[in-house]
Protein backbone atom coordinates (compact mmCIF):
# COMPACT_ATOMS: atom_id res chain seq x y z
CA UNK A 1 0.00 0.00 0.00
CA UNK A 2 2.84 2.37 0.89
CA UNK A 3 4.64 1.97 -2.42
CA UNK A 4 1.50 2.32 -4.54
CA UNK A 5 0.42 5.46 -2.73
CA UNK A 6 3.70 7.20 -3.54
CA UNK A 7 2.87 7.37 -7.23
CA UNK A 8 -0.17 9.59 -6.63
CA UNK A 9 -0.59 12.65 -4.48
CA UNK A 10 -3.29 12.46 -1.86
CA UNK A 11 -5.27 15.60 -1.12
CA UNK A 12 -7.54 16.10 1.87
CA UNK A 13 -10.37 18.50 0.99
CA UNK A 14 -12.37 20.18 3.75
CA UNK A 15 -15.66 21.99 3.12
CA UNK A 16 -18.98 22.11 4.95
CA UNK A 17 -20.92 22.52 1.69
CA UNK A 18 -21.85 19.23 0.05
CA UNK A 19 -21.95 20.88 -3.37
CA UNK A 20 -18.48 22.32 -2.99
CA UNK A 21 -17.15 19.00 -1.72
CA UNK A 22 -18.46 17.28 -4.81
CA UNK A 23 -17.00 19.98 -7.01
CA UNK A 24 -13.55 20.00 -5.44
CA UNK A 25 -13.46 16.22 -5.51
CA UNK A 26 -14.16 16.18 -9.23
CA UNK A 27 -11.63 18.94 -9.87
CA UNK A 28 -8.94 17.10 -7.90
CA UNK A 29 -9.67 13.73 -9.49
CA UNK A 30 -9.59 15.31 -12.94
CA UNK A 31 -6.13 16.55 -12.00
CA UNK A 32 -5.19 12.94 -11.14
CA UNK A 33 -5.00 13.33 -7.40
CA UNK A 34 -6.30 10.88 -4.86
CA UNK A 35 -8.97 12.63 -2.80
CA UNK A 36 -10.54 12.36 0.62
CA UNK A 37 -13.27 14.84 1.53
CA UNK A 38 -14.48 15.74 5.02
CA UNK A 39 -17.07 18.25 6.11
CA UNK A 40 -15.33 19.89 9.06
CA UNK A 41 -12.01 20.98 10.47
CA UNK A 42 -12.29 18.61 13.41
CA UNK A 43 -12.85 15.66 11.07
CA UNK A 44 -9.86 16.79 9.07
CA UNK A 45 -7.67 16.77 12.17
CA UNK A 46 -8.97 13.32 13.10
CA UNK A 47 -8.11 12.05 9.65
CA UNK A 48 -4.65 13.54 9.94
CA UNK A 49 -4.19 11.77 13.26
CA UNK A 50 -4.42 14.77 15.52
CA UNK A 51 -6.78 15.33 18.43
CA UNK A 52 -8.09 18.87 18.80
CA UNK A 53 -6.00 19.29 21.92
CA UNK A 54 -2.85 18.65 19.93
CA UNK A 55 -2.14 15.09 21.03
CA UNK A 56 -1.55 12.51 18.31
CA UNK A 57 -3.90 9.61 18.10
CA UNK A 58 -2.51 6.41 16.62
CA UNK A 59 -5.94 4.93 16.02
CA UNK A 60 -7.32 7.16 13.34
CA UNK A 61 -7.98 5.58 10.03
CA UNK A 62 -9.70 2.44 9.01
CA UNK A 63 -6.88 1.89 6.54
CA UNK A 64 -4.21 1.49 9.13
CA UNK A 65 -5.10 1.34 12.81
CA UNK A 66 -1.51 1.32 13.99
CA UNK A 67 0.34 4.15 12.35
CA UNK A 68 -1.46 7.30 11.19
CA UNK A 69 1.53 8.22 9.02
CA UNK A 70 0.56 5.51 6.54
CA UNK A 71 -2.43 7.53 5.41
CA UNK A 72 -0.16 10.07 3.84
CA UNK A 73 -1.71 13.40 3.01
CA UNK A 74 0.31 15.55 0.64
CA UNK A 75 -1.86 18.65 0.75
CA UNK A 76 -4.86 20.00 2.63
CA UNK A 77 -7.28 22.26 0.78
CA UNK A 78 -9.89 23.86 2.99
CA UNK A 79 -12.78 26.28 2.86
CA UNK A 80 -12.31 29.34 5.05
CA UNK A 81 -15.87 29.91 6.31
CA UNK A 82 -17.00 26.83 8.20
CA UNK A 83 -19.06 26.56 11.37
CA UNK A 84 -17.06 25.60 14.46
CA UNK A 85 -13.47 25.41 13.30
CA UNK A 86 -12.76 27.80 10.44
CA UNK A 87 -10.24 27.05 7.71
CA UNK A 88 -7.91 29.49 9.38
CA UNK A 89 -8.20 27.64 12.71
CA UNK A 90 -7.44 24.40 10.91
CA UNK A 91 -4.44 25.96 9.19
CA UNK A 92 -3.10 27.14 12.54
CA UNK A 93 -3.52 23.75 14.16
CA UNK A 94 -1.70 22.05 11.30
CA UNK A 95 1.18 24.52 11.34
CA UNK A 96 1.48 24.27 15.13
CA UNK A 97 1.73 20.49 15.03
CA UNK A 98 5.22 19.05 14.84
CA UNK A 99 3.97 16.05 12.89
CA UNK A 100 1.79 17.96 10.43
CA UNK A 101 3.41 21.36 9.91
CA UNK A 102 5.12 20.36 6.68
CA UNK A 103 1.87 19.54 4.95
CA UNK A 104 1.04 22.34 2.50
CA UNK A 105 -2.31 23.99 3.16
CA UNK A 106 -4.44 25.91 0.66
CA UNK A 107 -7.38 28.08 1.65
CA UNK A 108 -10.53 28.66 -0.44
CA UNK A 109 -13.02 31.41 0.12
CA UNK A 110 -16.02 32.90 -1.66
CA UNK A 111 -15.12 36.32 -0.25
CA UNK A 112 -12.31 38.52 -1.44
CA UNK A 113 -11.14 40.07 1.83
CA UNK A 114 -7.52 41.27 1.62
CA UNK A 115 -6.92 41.15 5.38
CA UNK A 116 -8.23 37.59 5.48
CA UNK A 117 -5.94 36.61 2.64
CA UNK A 118 -2.83 38.12 4.24
CA UNK A 119 -3.64 36.50 7.57
CA UNK A 120 -3.81 33.11 5.93
CA UNK A 121 -0.65 33.54 3.91
CA UNK A 122 1.20 34.82 6.97
CA UNK A 123 0.06 31.82 8.96
CA UNK A 124 1.67 29.60 6.34
CA UNK A 125 -0.99 28.89 3.72
CA UNK A 126 0.63 28.23 0.36
CA UNK A 127 -2.20 29.59 -1.75
CA UNK A 128 -5.50 31.35 -1.37
CA UNK A 129 -8.12 30.53 -4.00
CA UNK A 130 -11.27 32.50 -4.59
CA UNK A 131 -14.35 30.39 -5.11
CA UNK A 132 -15.61 28.99 -7.33
CA UNK A 133 -12.31 27.19 -7.78
CA UNK A 134 -11.33 26.24 -11.30
CA UNK A 135 -9.22 23.53 -12.86
CA UNK A 136 -6.55 26.06 -13.74
CA UNK A 137 -6.19 26.96 -10.05
CA UNK A 138 -5.34 23.36 -9.23
CA UNK A 139 -2.34 23.48 -11.54
CA UNK A 140 -0.67 25.46 -8.78
CA UNK A 141 -0.86 22.60 -6.31
CA UNK A 142 1.68 20.24 -7.84
CA UNK A 143 4.84 22.21 -6.97
CA UNK A 144 3.83 22.46 -3.31
CA UNK A 145 3.34 18.74 -3.05
CA UNK A 146 6.56 17.94 -4.91
CA UNK A 147 8.52 20.18 -2.57
CA UNK A 148 7.27 18.25 0.44
CA UNK A 149 8.14 14.91 -1.11
CA UNK A 150 11.74 15.97 -1.57
CA UNK A 151 11.93 17.33 1.95
CA UNK A 152 10.53 14.11 3.43
CA UNK A 153 12.97 12.10 1.35
CA UNK A 154 15.90 14.14 2.65
CA UNK A 155 14.79 13.81 6.24
CA UNK A 156 14.51 10.03 5.89
CA UNK A 157 18.02 9.82 4.46
CA UNK A 158 19.33 11.96 7.29
CA UNK A 159 17.87 9.58 9.84
CA UNK A 160 19.43 6.60 8.10
CA UNK A 161 22.83 8.25 8.05
CA UNK A 162 22.65 9.01 11.74
CA UNK A 163 21.84 5.42 12.56
CA UNK A 164 24.65 4.10 10.40
CA UNK A 165 27.64 5.62 12.16
CA UNK A 166 28.66 7.01 15.51
CA UNK A 167 29.31 10.67 14.95
CA UNK A 168 32.08 12.74 16.47
CA UNK A 169 31.16 16.42 16.95
CA UNK A 170 33.31 17.43 13.96
CA UNK A 171 31.70 14.81 11.76
CA UNK A 172 28.26 15.96 12.89
CA UNK A 173 29.10 19.51 11.84
CA UNK A 174 30.17 18.30 8.40
CA UNK A 175 27.00 16.26 8.14
CA UNK A 176 24.90 19.30 8.94
CA UNK A 177 26.70 21.44 6.38
CA UNK A 178 26.12 18.74 3.79
CA UNK A 179 22.42 18.62 4.59
CA UNK A 180 22.16 22.38 4.43
CA UNK A 181 23.82 22.41 1.01
CA UNK A 182 21.49 19.68 -0.17
CA UNK A 183 18.49 21.66 0.93
CA UNK A 184 19.72 24.76 -0.84
CA UNK A 185 20.19 22.74 -4.02
CA UNK A 186 16.74 21.25 -3.64
CA UNK A 187 15.21 24.67 -3.15
CA UNK A 188 16.98 25.98 -6.22
CA UNK A 189 15.89 23.10 -8.36
CA UNK A 190 12.37 23.37 -6.98
CA UNK A 191 12.29 27.06 -7.80
CA UNK A 192 13.42 26.31 -11.33
CA UNK A 193 10.89 23.56 -11.60
CA UNK A 194 8.15 25.86 -10.33
CA UNK A 195 9.25 28.50 -12.80
CA UNK A 196 9.07 25.99 -15.66
CA UNK A 197 5.64 24.83 -14.62
CA UNK A 198 4.33 28.37 -14.23
CA UNK A 199 5.70 29.46 -17.58
CA UNK A 200 3.95 26.57 -19.21
CA UNK A 201 0.58 27.86 -18.05
CA UNK A 202 -1.30 30.73 -19.50
CA UNK A 203 -4.72 30.69 -17.91
CA UNK A 204 -6.99 33.58 -18.70
CA UNK A 205 -7.58 35.22 -15.38
CA UNK A 206 -10.47 37.50 -14.89
CA UNK A 207 -10.26 37.51 -11.13
CA UNK A 208 -7.26 38.14 -8.89
CA UNK A 209 -5.42 35.20 -7.42
CA UNK A 210 -3.16 35.39 -4.42
CA UNK A 211 -0.15 33.19 -3.87
CA UNK A 212 2.81 33.69 -1.64
CA UNK A 213 2.43 37.46 -1.51
CA UNK A 214 1.02 39.62 1.18
CA UNK A 215 -1.91 41.56 -0.24
CA UNK A 216 -2.03 45.25 0.48
CA UNK A 217 -4.94 45.98 2.76
Amino acid at each position, binding site marked *: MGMAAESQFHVLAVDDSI*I*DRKLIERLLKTSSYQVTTVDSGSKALKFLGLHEDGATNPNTSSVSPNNHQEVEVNLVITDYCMPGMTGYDLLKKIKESSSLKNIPVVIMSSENVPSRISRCLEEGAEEFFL*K*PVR*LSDLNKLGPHMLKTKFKDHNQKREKQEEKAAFQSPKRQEQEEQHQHQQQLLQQQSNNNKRKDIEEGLSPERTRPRYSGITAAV
Partner: protein
Amino acid sequence: MDVLQLQKQFVDYRASLYHEGFLDEQFTQLQELQDENNPDFVVEVVSLFFEDSERLLNELTKALEQQSIDFKRVDAHVHQLKGSSSSIGAQRVQKVCIAFRNYCEEQNIEGCLKCLQQVKHEYSLVKTKFETMFQLEQQILTAGGSIPV
Protein backbone atom coordinates in the same frame (compact mmCIF):
# COMPACT_ATOMS: atom_id res chain seq x y z
CA MET B 1 -38.24 15.37 -34.16
CA ASP B 2 -35.02 13.91 -35.42
CA VAL B 3 -31.73 14.00 -33.57
CA LEU B 4 -30.43 17.10 -35.32
CA GLN B 5 -33.55 19.05 -34.47
CA LEU B 6 -33.44 17.90 -30.88
CA GLN B 7 -29.82 18.89 -30.64
CA LYS B 8 -30.53 22.32 -32.06
CA GLN B 9 -33.42 22.80 -29.68
CA PHE B 10 -31.13 21.91 -26.79
CA VAL B 11 -28.30 24.19 -27.87
CA ASP B 12 -30.68 27.12 -28.38
CA TYR B 13 -32.34 26.54 -25.04
CA ARG B 14 -29.07 26.36 -23.19
CA ALA B 15 -27.83 29.51 -24.93
CA SER B 16 -30.98 31.35 -23.87
CA LEU B 17 -30.29 30.49 -20.23
CA TYR B 18 -26.94 32.22 -20.43
CA HIS B 19 -28.45 35.09 -22.36
CA GLU B 20 -31.16 35.62 -19.75
CA GLY B 21 -28.67 35.49 -16.90
CA PHE B 22 -29.89 32.24 -15.38
CA LEU B 23 -26.53 30.61 -15.92
CA ASP B 24 -23.01 31.95 -16.00
CA GLU B 25 -19.51 30.81 -16.89
CA GLN B 26 -19.31 28.58 -13.83
CA PHE B 27 -21.93 26.26 -15.32
CA THR B 28 -19.70 25.87 -18.36
CA GLN B 29 -16.88 24.84 -16.02
CA LEU B 30 -19.16 22.17 -14.57
CA GLN B 31 -19.97 20.79 -17.97
CA GLU B 32 -16.29 20.60 -18.80
CA LEU B 33 -15.74 18.39 -15.76
CA GLN B 34 -18.21 15.86 -17.10
CA ASP B 35 -16.87 13.08 -19.32
CA GLU B 36 -17.51 9.46 -20.31
CA ASN B 37 -16.22 8.30 -16.94
CA ASN B 38 -18.45 10.74 -15.07
CA PRO B 39 -21.43 11.15 -17.39
CA ASP B 40 -23.87 12.23 -14.68
CA PHE B 41 -21.71 14.73 -12.90
CA VAL B 42 -23.74 17.82 -13.81
CA VAL B 43 -27.09 16.24 -12.98
CA GLU B 44 -25.69 15.02 -9.67
CA VAL B 45 -24.33 18.40 -8.64
CA VAL B 46 -27.47 20.22 -9.69
CA SER B 47 -29.59 17.69 -7.77
CA LEU B 48 -27.51 18.35 -4.67
CA PHE B 49 -28.09 22.04 -5.26
CA PHE B 50 -31.87 21.48 -5.37
CA GLU B 51 -31.87 19.53 -2.12
CA ASP B 52 -29.58 21.93 -0.34
CA SER B 53 -31.45 25.02 -1.53
CA GLU B 54 -34.82 23.70 -0.49
CA ARG B 55 -33.44 22.98 2.94
CA LEU B 56 -32.00 26.48 3.19
CA LEU B 57 -35.18 28.15 1.95
CA ASN B 58 -37.15 26.30 4.61
CA GLU B 59 -34.70 27.39 7.27
CA LEU B 60 -34.86 30.97 6.04
CA THR B 61 -38.65 30.98 6.10
CA LYS B 62 -38.66 29.69 9.67
CA ALA B 63 -35.97 32.10 10.80
CA LEU B 64 -37.82 35.09 9.38
CA GLU B 65 -41.10 34.02 10.98
CA GLN B 66 -39.67 34.33 14.46
CA GLN B 67 -40.85 37.04 16.83
CA SER B 68 -37.30 38.11 17.38
CA ILE B 69 -35.28 37.55 14.23
CA ASP B 70 -31.74 36.24 14.54
CA PHE B 71 -30.14 38.10 11.62
CA LYS B 72 -26.84 36.33 12.06
CA ARG B 73 -28.56 33.03 11.55
CA VAL B 74 -30.46 34.34 8.54
CA ASP B 75 -27.23 35.68 7.09
CA ALA B 76 -25.47 32.37 7.63
CA HIS B 77 -28.12 30.55 5.61
CA VAL B 78 -28.06 33.16 2.84
CA HIS B 79 -24.28 32.92 2.75
CA GLN B 80 -24.56 29.18 2.16
CA LEU B 81 -27.15 29.66 -0.57
CA LYS B 82 -25.03 32.30 -2.20
CA GLY B 83 -22.06 29.95 -2.14
CA SER B 84 -23.84 26.99 -3.64
CA SER B 85 -25.59 28.99 -6.34
CA SER B 86 -22.25 30.52 -7.24
CA SER B 87 -20.65 27.08 -7.40
CA ILE B 88 -23.09 25.83 -10.00
CA GLY B 89 -23.43 29.06 -11.94
CA ALA B 90 -27.01 29.94 -10.93
CA GLN B 91 -26.33 33.62 -11.39
CA ARG B 92 -29.75 35.14 -10.72
CA VAL B 93 -30.13 33.28 -7.45
CA GLN B 94 -26.66 34.38 -6.44
CA LYS B 95 -27.45 38.02 -7.19
CA VAL B 96 -30.54 38.04 -4.99
CA CYS B 97 -28.46 36.50 -2.20
CA ILE B 98 -26.03 39.39 -2.36
CA ALA B 99 -28.85 41.91 -1.86
CA PHE B 100 -30.31 39.66 0.82
CA ARG B 101 -27.07 39.70 2.82
CA ASN B 102 -26.99 43.48 2.72
CA TYR B 103 -30.46 43.63 4.26
CA CYS B 104 -29.34 41.17 6.93
CA GLU B 105 -26.44 43.41 7.81
CA GLU B 106 -28.82 46.37 8.09
CA GLN B 107 -31.20 44.20 10.10
CA ASN B 108 -33.90 45.34 7.72
CA ILE B 109 -36.84 42.97 8.18
CA GLU B 110 -38.87 44.21 5.23
CA GLY B 111 -35.88 44.01 2.94
CA CYS B 112 -35.18 40.49 4.11
CA LEU B 113 -38.73 39.36 3.58
CA LYS B 114 -38.75 40.86 0.12
CA CYS B 115 -35.50 39.09 -0.73
CA LEU B 116 -36.81 35.82 0.60
CA GLN B 117 -39.73 36.05 -1.82
CA GLN B 118 -37.40 36.98 -4.64
CA VAL B 119 -34.93 34.22 -3.98
CA LYS B 120 -37.71 31.64 -3.77
CA HIS B 121 -38.98 32.90 -7.09
CA GLU B 122 -35.56 32.83 -8.76
CA TYR B 123 -34.84 29.41 -7.36
CA SER B 124 -38.11 28.07 -8.68
CA LEU B 125 -37.40 29.55 -12.12
CA VAL B 126 -33.90 28.13 -12.40
CA LYS B 127 -35.06 24.76 -11.15
CA THR B 128 -37.59 24.59 -13.97
CA LYS B 129 -34.95 25.69 -16.45
CA PHE B 130 -32.54 22.97 -15.35
CA GLU B 131 -35.26 20.34 -15.43
CA THR B 132 -36.27 21.35 -18.95
CA MET B 133 -32.66 21.30 -20.08
CA PHE B 134 -32.07 17.83 -18.61
CA GLN B 135 -35.24 16.59 -20.32
CA LEU B 136 -34.00 17.89 -23.66
CA GLU B 137 -30.69 16.10 -23.08
CA GLN B 138 -32.54 12.91 -22.29
CA GLN B 139 -34.57 13.19 -25.49
CA ILE B 140 -31.38 13.47 -27.53
CA LEU B 141 -29.90 10.41 -25.83
CA THR B 142 -33.09 8.43 -26.29
CA ALA B 143 -33.10 9.31 -29.98
CA GLY B 144 -29.58 7.92 -30.19
CA GLY B 145 -27.75 11.22 -30.43
CA SER B 146 -24.98 12.75 -28.35
CA ILE B 147 -25.20 15.93 -26.31
CA PRO B 148 -23.52 18.89 -28.01
CA VAL B 149 -20.79 20.45 -25.92
